[in-house]
């Protein structure tokens, strides 16, 4: 339990931590997890859920904002949920993270080429082209998406949607930080 690291590897400027939470795949489990965050006043920055390779379990990837609550307490409270089987804290430096964004950007014919070039640079895909707008999708690590989104903003984003990040430990090195297998009551 004490191996859960509540120190922020980035210093104060960055207060996000990634928890990969393996849960039993049962009705209401997402409500239990999100309800816990709401009830205890913890902030969720983003959240992604999907079945894992074993159909009995799902994986919830939560990016938590720990500016207000120590991560250790969040992890321990999460562990108290009976359906939570395992919690792994992923150190962003030792994990691969991916996120997807789709965005519709206002752009007239004249500037469309600039957008296409930008998309090309970021390996984004143009999904649809209209008279005065294009829809683009991009995936990659969240910082890259941040940068891309920032650039698009200059043109005017009509609508955009991000998925929230998913993450796994990097393969090469010992990447699991504090994979806690013990269980709370």
């Amino acid at each position, binding site marked *: 339990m004490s191996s859960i690291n509540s120190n922020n590897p980035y210093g104060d400027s960055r207060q996000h931590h990634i928890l990969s939470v393996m849960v039993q795949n049962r009705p*209401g489990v997402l*409500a239990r997890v999100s309800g816990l965050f709401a009830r205890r006043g913890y902030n969720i920055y983003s959240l992604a859920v999907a079945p894992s390779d074993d159909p009995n379990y799902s994986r919830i990837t939560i990016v938590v904002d720990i500016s207000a609550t120590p991560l250790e*307490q969040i992890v321990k409270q999460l*562990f108290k949920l*009976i359906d*939570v089987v395992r919690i792994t804290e992923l150190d962003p430096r030792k994990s691969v993270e991916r996120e997807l964004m789709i965005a519709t950007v206002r752009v007239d014919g004249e500037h469309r080429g600039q957008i296409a070039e930008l998309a090309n640079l970021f390996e984004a895909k143009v999904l649809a082209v209209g008279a005065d707008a294009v829809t683009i999708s991009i995936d990659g690590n969240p910082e890259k998406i941040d940068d891309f989104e920032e650039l698009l903003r200059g043109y005017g984003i009509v609508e955009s949607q991000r998925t929230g990040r998913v993450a796994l430990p990097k393969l090469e090195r010992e990447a699991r930080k504090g994979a806690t297998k013990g*269980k*709370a*009551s």
Partner: protein
Amino acid sequence: MSTKETLTGAEALIRSLELENVEIMFGLPGGCILPAYDPLLKSSIRHVLVRHEQGAGHMAQGYAHVTGRPGVAMVTSGPAATNMVTPLCDAFMDSIPMVCITGQVPTSAIGTDAFQECDTVGITRSVTKHNELVMRAEDIPMAVRQAFYIATTGRPGPVLIDMPKDVLQNTMTWHWPTDEEVVDSLPGYRPNVKGHPKMIKEAAKLILASEKPVLYLGGGVLKARAAEVVKELAELLQIPVVTTLMARGAFPDKHPLCYGMPGMHGTATAITAMQKSDLLIALGSRFDDRVTGKVNSFAQDAKIIHVDIDPAEQGKVRKPDVPIVGDCRQVVEEILKAIKELMAEGISATDITPWRSRVNGWKEQFPLTYDMSGPGDKLKPQFCLEKLRDAAPEGTIVVSGVGQHQMWASLFWEFNEPYTWVNSGGLGTMGFSVPAAIGAKAAKPDRTVWAIDGDGCFQMTAQELVTATTEGIHVKIAIMNNTYLGMVRQWQEMFYGQRYSEVDLAGCPDFVKWAEAMGCVGIRVESVDEIDEAIALANSINDRSVVVEFRVEEFEKVFPMVPAGASNDEVLLHPNQESRREFLK
């Protein structure tokens, strides 16, 4: 026994409860739970029919408090389930094992806003240790086994099972899951009971080295049935002990090492001993805000050993120097062993006689006190409580409501035996005492059960005395009638310039007539010379419940008091003792 047996879901439910050794349950039927009430007719389980579902929940709690076994309540869907929310939350806050079964609309109607449908698992999610909506009759035995397993292991708590009507009506092939199957079905639930050996050794060393240790006992000591071994530890090294509101009785009040209750209305000695301590040995206690006062000025010089079965309690409020996750009894046994080993190796315990004499000095200087009433004055509630205490038969169980009377009961009673004090600590639920007393008495019919109640609290759940009468579960209720929501009035007097807003209860009802209408004996006590006789009469009646109304002083205040948010150093003493304040150094 491999012959396949076919049962209805309802039959499977009742059989499962029987196999979990349920002897009594508290409830009230209705539409969706109807199927379960039919096989109950032939069951060995006694069902107590309540007058309000909240009563069923608190009765189950009272039962659990005094037996350590899970209390069981069964009610229907919708309004009955919502009536159960308060007891569930109460049990959750005080870690009381409880299993609650609610009816639900048929599976095909779920989500349609059907008659008496409510999202019971959604509503109760944050007030239960776990809850489950059962969707197939064949899942019932496993759901029941899981519920009892979860409610009673690790940190105990309430578990709710929601049962749609068609699930109760459908048939299933009976199978009673094995222990192994139950454990395997809950891969995310592995409570840790055994403390870490390194931490235990560390704790033993700290205890031997401490000059000013205090054993800070919480309700977990009772849950873990650890009172005996904790006493052994205290006596071995002569360590002063304080017992929180949830731990009263875990260590005998008459023991010379006992300094009573700490906290907002604790004894000056218990509060100050903790403040000045250099080592708090927290056993099954959770550094509740009512105990710590202002957290960052709480026991600033103390190192902390924190033994708790719930890892999330470690460091939640105060970072421990030695965190030990485990069952209190097992861990304290191990700590004792480690201490004895260290002593055998020649490490001796620090002499704590100077500390003890300092603590004893406080105890002498600041005993509990109140002003006696003059001739013709109203009764003093503390005096009535002392009289009740002194006349109470051996082994009496005391159950309390919430308010001033609760604090006086905790302070002025003498608890010398575990499981003789039942109250609502964490949630502070007015209306707890009457039904909880009935549950306690149902569990321990040979004991006298006295509920100490307030006039406000009594009016919240008094109707359960009808249940007591019809079920023949005879309890005794002492109402400390100060004609006020007294605790709130005290705060308005002290912190809102005596501007009394909506706290006056005077004028109605007539408690004696009300008691009689419910089949109880009603007694009113208005003057000092009536007290002894009334209490003797109440104690002598065993074939009916008794309500004794004590007309007590309206403006009496509870002291000592640490105002909300203040430091424990700023404890307000009884006005008679304020002049001696300097002795609290």
